[in-house]
């Protein structure tokens, strides 16, 4: 006999367990179909949502989708659950929780005080009942602020990760993209390189380059080379200038093992990076990347849908009070998110759920060339996320990452969002842009020549300034 049943319009729909209800209630996406857990029909999908709407939030504390005994992420979620914070919403069903989120009387402060009581599974469940506009309006209420050398996530602000990747990690090639980004007002979330290699001496050279550029231009921002946490630990040990510790994370212990990490390793890395005490206005030192589909791709999904598993990765992230969390939403390919519609939906879900759980969410709004998507889709996603209050997006020269071979957002795209939505960079960085003559007092981007003249003597820029 099935554990979950609902009679709807003369048809009985049965689900074997809560994971099946959740998977069937999810908006359609190719990754859940690939896993064989998606709803078999459009009507079954709505039936699952109807059933889900009447389930109490507290059920997710009892009926665990990934067994407590088998998975340290589940243990983290259950053991760190804040019962006092949960008390305010414990009486709600999933459907009533949606209405609580959308109610004008529920403000950002109410959401912030409930965050510790909300588990990833609860956030995922309610998001499955929310339309795209619901995901925008609820996320917009939430302001999750983090600090290192500047302040990320303030209302009315949009930060960018300047992503100056180069296929051979050539220092001058990287510096050229950084200079281009700075001229376009990019780089306040982080200046972060995906290295082409895992070679530690090369990564150390890139870290030194970034640090020299930052100090040479007196920039109030932070830098990062996005390499495995074990490499970062080794580089910290060797005295390399590490601001932030990066790691890709996922929502199950087995998928994290596939990434070569555990909570114990992340604990160690977090402590080692904090001990450097390089932040000036705060000590949020971790930078995490996530993305729907990573558990399935490492065959570690426990029959749970990819959006719920993504939310579980946020439980891993929030243990470390990160500076930045970034869902690389369209990178994984069409077998997980097929087209622009599915990528948009996932982007809004990830942003809302991450914010609800208390995280400083950014999005790598992106696609690969085998997905059914193009720049027009990215414009739509960027606009909706901007309205929703996304903390940061990527800045890639011309939106074309020549190292990773995918398309993200350009420096121009961030200018577009700042322009149409009246958003500014992080306050410390905005002041620096003005001081350097890159923007006028109103924040409007200016011609770059006073800046070029003033940084001409910075050795790490080589001859790039002419």
């Amino acid at each position: 006999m099935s554990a979950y049943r609902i009679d709807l319009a003369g048809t009985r729909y049965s689900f074997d367990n809560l994971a099946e209800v959740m998977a069937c209630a999810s908006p359609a996406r190719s990754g859940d179909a690939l896993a064989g857990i998606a709803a078999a029909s459009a009507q079954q999908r709505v039936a699952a949502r109807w059933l889900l709407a009447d389930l109490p939030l507290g059920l997710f504390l009892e009926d665990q989708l990934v067994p407590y005994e088998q998975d340290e992420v589940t243990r983290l979620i259950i053991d760190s659950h804040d019962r006092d914070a949960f008390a305010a919403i414990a009486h709600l069903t999933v459907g009533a929780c949606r209405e609580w989120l959308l109610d004008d009387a529920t403000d950002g402060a109410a959401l912030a005080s409930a965050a510790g009581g909300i588990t990833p599974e609860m956030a995922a469940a309610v998001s499955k009942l929310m339309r795209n506009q619901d995901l925008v309006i609820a996320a917009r209420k939430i302001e999750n602020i983090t600090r290192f050398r500047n302040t990320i996530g303030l209302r009315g602000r949009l930060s960018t990760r300047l992503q100056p990747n180069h296929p051979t990690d050539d220092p001058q090639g990287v510096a050229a993209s950084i200079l281009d980004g700075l001229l376009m007002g990019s780089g306040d979330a982080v200046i972060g390189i995906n290295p082409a290699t895992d070679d530690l001496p090369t990564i150390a050279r890139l870290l030194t380059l970034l640090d020299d550029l930052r100090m040479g231009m007196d920039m109030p921002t932070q830098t990062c080379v996005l390499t495995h946490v074990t490499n970062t630990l080794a580089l910290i040990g060797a005295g390399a200038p590490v601001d932030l510790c990066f790691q890709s994370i996922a929502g199950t212990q087995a998928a994290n093992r596939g990434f070569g990490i555990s909570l114990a390793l992340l604990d160690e890395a977090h402590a080692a990076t904090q001990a450097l005490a390089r932040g000036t206005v705060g000590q949020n030192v971790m930078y995490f990347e996530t993305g729907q589909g990573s558990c399935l791709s490492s065959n570690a999904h426990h029959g749970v849908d990819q959006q719920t598993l993504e939310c579980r990765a946020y439980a891993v992230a929030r243990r470390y009070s990160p500076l930045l969390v970034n869902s690389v939403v369209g990178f994984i390919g069409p077998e997980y998110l097929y087209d622009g519609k599915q990528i948009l939906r996932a982007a809004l879900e990830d942003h809302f759920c991450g914010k609800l759980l208390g995280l400083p969410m950014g999005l790598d709004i992106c696609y690969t060339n085998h997905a059914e998507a193009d720049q027009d889709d990215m414009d739509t996603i960027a606009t909706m996320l901007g309205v929703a209050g996304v903390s940061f997006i990527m800045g890639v020269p011309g939106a074309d990452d020549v190292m990773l071979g995918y398309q993200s957002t350009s420096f121009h795209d961030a200018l577009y969002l700042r322009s149409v939505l009246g958003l500014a960079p992080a306050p410390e960085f905005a002041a620096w842009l003005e001081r350097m003559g890159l923007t006028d007092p109103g924040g409007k981007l200016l011609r770059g020549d006073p800046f070029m003249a003033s940084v001409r003597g910075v050795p790490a820029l080589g001859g790039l300034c002419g």
Partner: protein
Amino acid sequence: MADLPDITPLRQRLSAFTNARVAIGRVGSSVPTGAMLEFQLAHARARDAVHDALAPGAVEQGLAGWPSISVHSAAPDRATYLLRPDLGRQLQPEDAASLQMDQAQLAIVIADGLSATATMAHGAALAMAMVERLRHDWRIGPMVIAHQARVALGDEIGEAMDAQMVVVLIGERPGLSAADSLSAYLTWAPRRGRLDSERNCISNIRPPHGRSIAEAADEIARILSRARAAQCTGVALAGGEALAAEEGPD
């Protein structure tokens, strides 16, 4: 148009060090028309490469009369191929039987992968450069031309041919800067269920901009002789290049 000063000298200085789309200028917040259309052309080229099919005879005619067999994966069309990587790793049932008579030590698979454009441009040339270097040391089977194929399809092909080793030449996922880049994946003792960590990979085979045919064939020959001595490929092959899992059309 663009209100950045000296945009041409700046672009020249920056572009000397990177092929990223640097200093493309701006109109207001937006990309100038020329740069926008250049981007669209590059994306269109990549999209067409993804959806291109191996033209009948296009690979065969480059094989200088070397025998070949055409096989299909269990993905019947491109849309299914893109949504179901698992089907691209299996042969359609009737094709497995057609390979069983062909005992070879070395199986060479020329596969479309995510860019038939790359496969048609470089696949046959690389296969014949391999034959030239390897024919005295290895009994090489007929070339297997594989449609709607992922890398791991080579495992089932190699297993059916009872080969010691399979080399899969396959089109890489197109980027904006290159839609015609080929990779070679080398797997010792191919059989279904092999892991990516058990393969070696040579990527960016793309004359004249990337690795040349001769360089790639030399490197493949070197890895083959080391694999035969060590009876393995992948991370277990000492000094072997570990396979970057996110790179290939696996």
